[in-house]
């Protein structure tokens, strides 16, 4: 007699049913940052549901509400509903959900540390080999194809090939650099690391797989939008084409394909952000979704 079946059902809906629907819906591409927020809200909501289901399994005889009060009590929140008995079950009721979030936090930290180490080593090498251009606020590397990437983080670098300087028009170049600066300024690597962490823990889950993929794409779109603020659409689109085409000979290694095409179409045929009311409603949903499992667990009908 507890909320475990309801929570499991909820987790299945959020983890398996909703993600493909979200991938197919059009609005996240029109407002990418909010789209990424929703993916993260779903991931958080799923984690909360799993943690609460764990509580339900640990304390099968009690209504979850008691377990929750215990958790909140433990966190220093007194609801005036009386102290829960500090029995073994209560301790488990705290330990199990904490473990879910401890694993997620550890995974997140691990991703950040690993990525930072890679970037540090890379940046050190880039600083030795490249020439910093104060005008471009970027490091130029000798490379025979137009290409650009960024090393986000505390000591960021934007890296661009000298071929890009030769082959792109000054406007195109500026649009590309603006795109990279948006990644750095927006701290997109942290957003991606959070989804990476979730994916490492729930590897096979559609929400994890699609969420990671989509978050990466949405961050690119967010950076595109930033570049589009100061540059005409066709400038960014043609720059994108130039750079994609230059890399085509290595096409055998193509990964994730098609996302540039999606971005390009979006740049060339902009649909604009949805009505503020729609965005507001989506933001409200994103705020509520993480606490939904609590409602599922505590709904009176399931007592």
């Amino acid at each position, binding site marked *: 007699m507890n909320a475990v079946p309801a929570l499991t059902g909820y987790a299945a809906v959020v983890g398996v049913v909703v993600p493909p629907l979200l991938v197919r819906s059009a609005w996240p591409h029109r407002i990418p940052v909010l789209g990424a927020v929703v993916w993260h809200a779903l991931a958080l909501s799923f984690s909360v549901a799993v943690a609460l289901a764990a509580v339900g399994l640990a304390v099968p005889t009690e209504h979850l509400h008691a377990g929750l009060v215990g958790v909140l009590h433990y966190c220093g929140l007194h609801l005036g509903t009386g102290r829960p008995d500090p029995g073994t079950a209560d301790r488990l009721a705290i330990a199990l959900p904490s473990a879910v979030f401890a694993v997620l936090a550890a995974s997140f930290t691990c991703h950040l540390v690993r990525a930072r180490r890679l970037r540090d080593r890379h940046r050190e090498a880039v600083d*030795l*080999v490249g020439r910093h251009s104060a005008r471009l606020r970027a490091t130029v590397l*000798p490379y025979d194809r137009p290409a650009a990437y*960024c090393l986000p983080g505390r000591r960021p670098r934007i890296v661009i090939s000298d071929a890009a300087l030769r082959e792109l028009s000054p406007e195109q170049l500026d649009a590309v650099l603006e*795109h990279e600066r948006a990644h750095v300024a927006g701290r997109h690597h942290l957003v991606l690391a959070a989804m990476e962490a979730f994916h490492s823990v729930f590897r096979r889950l559609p929400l994890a797989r699609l969420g990671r993929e989509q978050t990466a794409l949405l961050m690119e779109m967010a950076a595109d939008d930033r570049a589009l603020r100061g540059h005409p659409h066709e400038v960014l689109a043609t720059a994108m084409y130039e750079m994609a085409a230059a*890399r085509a000979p*290595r096409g055998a290694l193509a990964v994730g394909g098609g*996302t540039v095409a999606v971005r390009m179409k979006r740049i*060339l045929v902009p649909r604009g952000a949805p009505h503020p009311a729609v965005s507001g409603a989506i933001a409200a949903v994103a705020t509520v979704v993480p606490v939904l499992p609590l409602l599922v667990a505590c709904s009176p009908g399931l007592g």
Partner: protein
Amino acid sequence: MRRLGHLEAEIMDRLWTWDRPSTVRQIVDDINETRPVAYTTVMTVTNILFTKGWLLRERQGRAWLYTPARSREAYAAALMEDGLGTSRDRPAALMHFVENMTPEEIDALHKALRSVGRRAEP
């Protein structure tokens, strides 16, 4: 720390430009043309570069002759390919402008560009 990194770059820069085995003395003398720097500092940093694998060295009399392990272009190409993510498992480490695509996908891009009446510059 930053200054040390800067000196590393100065040393590598000279060795790449000269393109011949050189001694620490030669490097110090060249840097001293623009600013004063202690021989021991350059020697230490050169040694660090050797330990890190950036430089090779061989003895000539009592001095070491240093050469870059690889050309600047070779390093740059390796870095670029790394940064452009030919390795799949580091999407969060570096972010690149476009991913690798197949020729068919490039074709589709070109068509997309043309279909809206824009001209893709050659």
